[in-house]
């Protein structure tokens, strides 16, 4: 629903259902209207301040200290590559960013 990509996408959907005799431009107009409508509805959504864990790869020493204290088991060290499971991570507990001996874990708002 952003920019022209959204419009052309709706045009394709509406275009497929249109009758051969109708004006092909109707699909385009309808899709612009729909696009506008959805944009307005989308703007009314409640704000979500999602805090995400950002791993500074150039700082991480891949020691696994964070993995051992994560209460949700969301972190895993794959060889030397630290991963976060966004599904289980509660983001706000900050335990991993506190424990890190080097300061490789940051909490950033997205």
């Amino acid at each position, binding site marked *: 629903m952003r920019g022209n990509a959204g419009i052309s996408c709706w045009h394709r959907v509406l275009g497929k259902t249109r009758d051969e005799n109708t004006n092909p431009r109707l699909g385009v107009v309808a899709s612009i209207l729909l696009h506008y409508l959805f944009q307005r509805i989308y703007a009314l959504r409640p704000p979500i301040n999602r805090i995400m864990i950002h791993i500074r790869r150039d700082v991480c020493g891949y020691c*696994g*200290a964070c993995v*051992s204290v994560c*209460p949700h*088991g969301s972190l895993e060290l794959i*060889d030397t590559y630290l991963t976060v499971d966004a599904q289980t991570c509660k983001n706000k507990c900050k335990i991993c960013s*506190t424990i890190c001996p*080097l300061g490789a874990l940051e909490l950033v708002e997205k």
Partner: protein
Amino acid sequence: MKEFYDVLVIGGGPGGALAAKTAAETGLSVLLVEKRPAIGVPVRCAEGIGKDALAEFIEADPKWIAASVERAVLIGPNGTKFTISNEAAGGKVGYVLDRKVFDRELVWRAVEAGAEIQVHARASAPIMIGGSVQGAIIHQHGKIYEVRAKVVIAADGVESKFPKWAGIDTTVPLWELETCVQYIVNDIDIDPKANVFYISNEACPWGYIWIFPKGPRSANIGIGIAGTKSGEGHRAKDYLDRYLAKEFPNGKVTELIVGGVPVCRPLECSVADNLIIVGDAARLSDPITGGGIYNAMYTGKLAGNVAAAAIKNGDTSKKALMVYDKTWRDSHLGKTLVRNYAVKESFIKMDDKKLNSIVHSMSDMQIEDLSVKKLVLAIFKENPWLALELPHLLKAL
């Protein structure tokens, strides 16, 4: 990699290597998987071990011994020193190892005993049937293997995930994980025959700074602080950098080593159906020193033996494997862990004034026959205010 083994060992550290070697020696088919491409690296260790402790498992070999130390020196916050000399410790203090070579030697011995080893092979999940572990999914070089085993030994260290996936909570409380940074520092003036422990709640809160010699002018210099004492601007690395700038401003750092050391109680139960947990994964490192090599080797070997006996009897249920849990808890190792945890609980939170007073009372002592019990009693005599800590300490003694 085959589809079925008697024993699957996850992790190629000292615990995993001893487990694989012991199990293979009894004639079982054993697979050891190590997620890293090489055994022994990266090092996550200060590398100190007692001579007696090491001798229980392997004869000392110069190729993986970096230094032989004759005394341990405890330094209080104000610089007061207490030396445990060679004579007091019966002529055998300890070694500082070269873990990169040591770990390889241990794994090589497991291979010699008949165990199969796969590196860069990561266990990503247990195979669970009816709520019990039946093996593991192994990822290696972009391929996925299902490996089944009668017994799985989890030796996956401080970052242990395997037991967690199998339903055992191995999470270490934040305040009971020591967050550590260590440098190998070269070209410095040190006592090459002494392991130095510096305690101070200001310079290393709820932990200590260590200097373990790796040669005449080189040492592992590191720090561990409690997780709750760590944070932006005062992380383990910040504390260590401050200490180095003050004490060894001209030292040349050739290696950065980081890691976490659990100083919590061991897992409530270190076995499940077809699963044994050893070493750091079972949270068996010493709560006072943080040492874990011996404890991993001890429980690794025990796990290998218990797994072999259970497989021979055709019963690898939790009930059958409980003998592992009970044996290490009843051993000198289990008792030391209980005692040292209680002592740690009392001493860790003391401010520098109290720590000074304690180290001072120790430095006056003549200790011929050294034991923790005698040491604590002597400290107690000199520092009656410790009575406030009596409930904890009585448990320890």
